[in-house]
């Protein structure tokens, strides 16, 4: 664990006991209905939920189990906690069947989150692909609405999906497109009628945008193949490996560094990550 990624322990009492959270809203994000956002509110009137963009939680449904999800809402959005979830396994399939009012369990926040203090004073290039835009939304909303916009420099976003109907957070994207303090490039893989945005893969879009590497950090989340081809573009633009951050997904289960299944080398994604710089990942074996 580096100083830039302190582990904030939230599990002094019982690390395994989920907090009851009521579903406030369910938003179908994509046209294929495979990704839904769940906005949750605590059932108890206990401690407000505090976290850092980039952290994750274990969502729990008794009888089905738990699964880890990045937090898609921002700390500044105090009235709900959002998770955007693709229907893929046992817990997620059950989640997709649930309606507002239902109570589920949540453990967290877990993991390190983005090093916001290290990002302050810098320009940010945020690069997302496909469904991996959840914690990037958290990061962007926090910067834009958290009252500290002037603490950050230029804000540029490249977000690519296969087809227009797969963009998450379309209301947010439209609002960002209308602002003058953030530049958003949305790109799709192949041309579609009615699409007026950019066409092409994320690495090309980053190349064309050509963000300056000077005093800039890049945050990149997406499918491994997208990251693999975008990385050389960023390096070519002059980004150092310590200035490029990503978030890893492994099968985090206990979330507190005990159960032993999410490690990459000697680091546990659940406590040392999920956010790592490329320089940090260079020190670890490629096992994710």
């Amino acid at each position, binding site marked *: 664990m580096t100083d830039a990624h302190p*582990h904030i*322990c939230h*599990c*002094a*009492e*019982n*690390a*395994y*006991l*989920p*907090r*009851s*959270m009521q579903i406030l809203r369910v938003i179908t994000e994509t046209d294929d209905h495979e990704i839904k956002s769940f906005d949750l509110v605590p059932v108890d009137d206990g401690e407000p939920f505090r976290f850092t963009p980039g952290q994750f939680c274990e969502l*729990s*449904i*008794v*009888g*089905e*189990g*738990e*699964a880890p999800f990045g937090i898609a809402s921002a700390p500044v959005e105090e009235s709900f906690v959002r998770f955007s979830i693709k229907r*893929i*396994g*046992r817990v*997620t399939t059950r989640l997709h069947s*649930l309606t507002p*009012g*239902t*109570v*589920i*369990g949540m453990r967290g926040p877990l993991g390190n989150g983005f090093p916001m203090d290290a990002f302050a004073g810098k320009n940010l290039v945020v690069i997302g692909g496909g469904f991996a835009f959840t914690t990037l939304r958290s990061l962007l909303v926090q910067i834009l609405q958290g009252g500290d916009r002037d603490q950050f420099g230029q804000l540029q976003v490249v977000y690519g999906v296969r087809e227009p109907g797969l963009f998450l957070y379309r209301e947010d994207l439209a609002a960002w497109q209308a602002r003058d303090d953030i530049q958003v490039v949305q790109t799709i893989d192949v041309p579609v009628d009615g699409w007026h945005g950019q066409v092409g893969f994320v690495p090309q879009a980053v190349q064309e945008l050509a963000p300056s590497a000077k005093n800039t950090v890049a945050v990149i989340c997406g499918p491994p193949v997208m990251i693999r081809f975008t990385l050389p573009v960023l390096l070519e633009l002059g980004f150092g490996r310590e200035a490029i951050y990503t978030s890893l*997904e*492994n*099968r985090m*289960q*206990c979330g*507190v*560094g*005990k*159960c*032993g*299944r*999410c*490690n*990459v*080398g*000697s680091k546990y994604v659940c*406590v040392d990550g999920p956010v790592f710089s490329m320089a940090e990942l260079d020190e670890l*074996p490629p*096992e*994710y």
Partner: protein
Amino acid sequence: MTLSCEAPVVAGMISRQALEEALGGWMQSWRVIAPVRQDGEVRFQPLDEPAAVAWDYANAKHSAKGVYLPQVERLLTYARTRDDLNQVKATDPPAGPTMLFGLRPCDARARLMVDQVMVDGVCRDRYYAARRDGTVVVGLACEHPRSTCFCGAFDSGPYDATGSDILLRSAGDMYLVDVVTERGAELAKDLALEPVDDEHSQRAEQAQAKAEGALRPMERLVGIEAALEGLWDDPLWQEISAKCLACGTCTYLCPTCHCFAVEDRALGDGGERVRAWDSCMYAGFTAHASGHNPRPDQASRWRQRVMHKFSYLPENVDAYGCVGCGRCVVSCPVNLDIRQVLARVWAAARTQAEESAL
């Protein structure tokens, strides 16, 4: 890099009969777990009577791991209703003092190693911690190591007191009592100790020399993390894992393997969430719901097992995830021998060093 303890203090000596009397007293205030012979096998079980202790056992097939990290442990119970899918009730951490009596030094050290992860690591596991805090260990020095034992390779040995509160050393008709911790000093007050005479002191030393001499020679393992550094892509992982059946026996019998799964089990109208031993030898251990698996073959799983024990744990908690008890060697159905695997690690590292020197 190896677990160690302060030099123990010889408090005195005691006959087995007097020890059994003390055990009877301890059984009033402690749940005493001890090695007991049953169906031709020695198992760690709650003790019914002091006379049932198997004093002379060579190490048991199963370790006492189930006492400090139960194979299945309930974390919470739940009710199932339509609208509330988090109607849960946390299970209270286990209470009640437990004495682990007659643990061999390898097993006592293994428990100490697991403590480093579960209690002294980043987050305190309250279930494990409650059990750990309520447990005392009376170790029993190992007079007859088996041919598969290799505790000596860790700068430890069959008479290592680390992890015990008290260590008993056989000296013919008497046991020498070594006090290792403050809790051990308290326990020793319950024993009718006699001063140690030269004869028994010598007998104990002779037995120790004999036991240490009985360990098969093996290359020292302390420092093997450095040898592992350059071996990520070495063909040895493919070669050693080719015959592995992925049965997980090695990890289940290992007293230091502590990886677990959290899962729900239905019981009538509700159910329980438990943690249960799991194994890095299984493909499903790391498989994602998407089908992606960061450790896609048995070679990568074997590499994980070796790296975790001999590289990651030393880095993270300053202890090896192996105490040389040899259980995985004894019970592997295809005779995969961790000692040979580690010998190959040293050899591969030497080959690499020679090649880079050319």
